[in-house]
């Protein structure tokens, strides 16, 4: 079983990025859960969600000891760095998380210039998808094609087909960045 | 010229209201209107908590037993799910205007297409004559033993006027019972209110100024005199709003 936390500030799309990953997991025949922070956290401050996927029954859907954390702002990095499983990964947008990230020797910090890439793509809202591309590569559980198909399937069912090309491009950039 | 007149057959028995109580007349008018409109077999009456609880087993039509004040809410779903049924909420002023003010106003606000008949007798009858929002300034009641002090409790509430002026409803009127002519007018209001519902125009409400001789401490005839002299000047009679049929 894998446990991943997506954290950032409201509006960055971290909940959506988590949802895409959980949907990709389902798409490839796994079990998945997605658990958001909700309530006051929705209204400013940090937002986060926990995604778990597994080949067998998932018991707790809650945050326990994440294998990987995606942090898209400094408060999220500070809040979650202590929680990563020893040997786990902290994935950050190095354009935003500019603080000292050398906090734990047993956690690998992977830095992606997500905001720079999004600006290069002329698509600043795609930061979450770029980071997700990097995340999927790091996890190594799904192929690039599998993930892109799952993502496009999910957005298509929400009636958002028109973003398919842009999302695919963003995902590929992120996937290639690690 | 004489025509037969008989209490509608859907009234199964005499209801044990106090001598001279207006409820008996208003229930009869309501049942006459239902019968004359041809809805004897497609009608539901919402019965409240208060003196009208005495209607238990008295009417041979479907009679919903509401919670105190809440029939504005319960009649809403009944009418929405059974739009062809004539739905009539029979309520006292304590029920509809005090404890059920929110439900009454919200049903009117949503323009729910049922009919409300409220019996305004200026106090809580069933519980022993306590002050209602409709009690007159200076009126002595069980909870205003020195007379209603409007400095502390506000002036008597005129819900029909509030509904008529604030909400997009179909029909609002106020009648009384102190002469045969007034009774006939009141019946015409109730019938028009039901017709507005049948025609799908919208929410309708008829308030009836009604005597409560027992709690007022007056004879039935003196109670009627009080309505004429004290209540009508503050609670004017007549149609307040009539959007007309379709």
């Amino acid at each position, binding site marked *: 079983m894998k446990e991943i936390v997506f954290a950032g500030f409201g509006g960055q799309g971290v909940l959506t990025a988590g*949802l895409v990953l*959980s*949907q990709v997991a*389902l798409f490839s*025949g796994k*079990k*998945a*859960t*997605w*658990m*958001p922070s*909700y*309530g*006051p956290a929705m209204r400013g401050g940090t937002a986060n969600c926990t995604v778990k996927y597994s080949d067998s029954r998932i*018991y*707790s*859907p*809650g*945050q*326990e*000891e994440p294998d990987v954390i995606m942090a898209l702002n400094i408060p999220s990095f500070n809040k979650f760095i202590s929680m990563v499983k020893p040997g786990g990964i902290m994935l950050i947008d190095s354009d935003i998380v500019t603080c000292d990230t050398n906090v734990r020797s047993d956690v690998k910090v992977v830095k992606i210039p997500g905001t720079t890439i999004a600006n290069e793509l002329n698509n600043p809202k795609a930061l979450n998808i770029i980071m997700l591309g990097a995340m999927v590569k790091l996890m190594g559980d799904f192929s690039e094609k599998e993930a892109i198909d799952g993502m496009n399937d*999910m957005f298509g*069912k929400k009636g958002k087909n028109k973003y398919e090309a842009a999302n695919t491009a963003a995902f590929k950039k992120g996937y290639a960045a690690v | 010229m004489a025509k037969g007149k008989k209490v509608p057959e859907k009234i199964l028995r005499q209801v044990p209201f106090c001598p001279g109580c207006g409820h008996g007349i208003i229930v009869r008018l309501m049942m006459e209107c239902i019968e004359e409109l041809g809805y004897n*077999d*497609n*009608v*539901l009456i919402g*019965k409240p908590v208060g003196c009208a*609880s005495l209607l*238990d*087993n008295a009417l*041979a*039509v*479907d*009679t*919903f*037993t*509401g*919670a105190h004040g*809440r*029939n*504005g*809410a*319960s*009649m*809403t*779903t*009944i009418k*929405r*799910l*059974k739009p062809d*049924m*004539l739905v009539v909420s029979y309520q006292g002023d304590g029920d509809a205007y005090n404890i059920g003010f*929110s*439900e009454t106003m*919200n049903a009117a606000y949503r323009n729910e297409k049922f009919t409300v008949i409220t019996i305004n007798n200026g106090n809580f009858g069933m519980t022993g004559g306590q002050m209602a929002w409709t009690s007159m300034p200076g009126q002595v009641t069980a909870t205003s033993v020195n007379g209603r002090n409007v400095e502390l409790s506000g002036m008597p509430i005129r819900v029909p006027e509030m509904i008529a002026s604030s909400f997009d409803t179909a029909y609002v009127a106020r009648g009384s019972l102190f002469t045969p002519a007034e009774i006939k007018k009141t019946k015409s209001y109730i019938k028009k209110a039901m017709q507005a519902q049948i025609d799908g125009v919208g929410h309708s409400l008829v308030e009836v100024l009604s005597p409560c001789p027992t709690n007022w401490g007056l004879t039935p005839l003196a109670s009627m005199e009080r309505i004429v002299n004290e209540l009508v000047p503050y609670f004017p009679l007549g149609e307040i709003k009539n959007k007309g049929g379709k």
Partner: protein
Amino acid sequence: MGDMVKGNIAMGEAAIRAGMHIYCGYPITPSSEVMEYLSWRAQEAGRQFIQAANEGEAMYMVYGAASIGSRVLTASSGLGISLKQEGVTYMAAADYPAVMINVCRYGDGLGSLESGQTDYKRETRGGGNGDYRNIVLSPSTVQEAVDLVYLAFDLSEKYRNIVVILTEGALGQMMEDCDYPPMKEVPYYDWAFDGKYTHGPYPSQMAVDLHAKGIKNNEKRAAITENEQRWEAVGVEDAEYVLFAYGIPGRVVLGIVDELRKKGEKVGIIRPISLWPFPQKAFDSINKNVKGFISVETADSGQMLEDVALYAKKKGFGNVPCYFISSPPGVPKSKFVLENFEAIKAGKVKEVF
């Protein structure tokens, strides 16, 4: 395979599939998505939806809708369900069916927005004045939430009783895949008001023999108790300790038990699915030499714990100590529950009963 779907939305869809005619409610976190979803989905499916002015009004809309025999749903949380209680007891008095979802938030009064199980006692004991019980079902997965909502309408009608789906903020807000049961179109129940006086008078409470009616309702409650106990049990036959947990803590503890048993520890779990009736039959399989019962709840006072102790006594385990693990708001952490369990085993925690 279904798509990822939020618990609240899945329950809304399950109600549509179960033939719900009308939803009446008022939004409150963390239950609001049930209502937001049904605000358009009900119309799409040819059903009805009303946003009431407050929770109490919504419950009287439920009362009216039930009186004409429709399948009616309301949903709320914590204090919103408190506001409904007057209507709930009126419904009980009239023997009207309805389904009420409580997506429980943690705490007294306004409480918090976080997930909790602090409403167990209120839901399982009735909640309003008088002498009635609601059937209470509690899911631990989105799929189970769907299945129980679907079932709830049938149970509610069968026993002419309110069925409460007691779930938690965490389950309402989380997403999982699920399969939906088939769509049902259900006619209005024929015992109800039809405008034709088909069933004669329906007197108010004041006009009936309440004691006789109460005795008769005891028969109904006995039938529910006999027929409607639901639970999941793992490893209780040889268990030295049996943990009790429902809802989200139920699945967390299932995971802990699974892990411990793989290590050879003799530990079991009973996960009640029906909270009332409490699954007392589950005790029949428990190892007679069990050393302790442990209730794990996202609550402070040990609410289900009282039922565990009560039925332990009834089932011949009166001398088995009953312990409590109080998990803070949110989803219980496995590590936290494990540490507390170890402390109990080590004799460092005093039993409650």
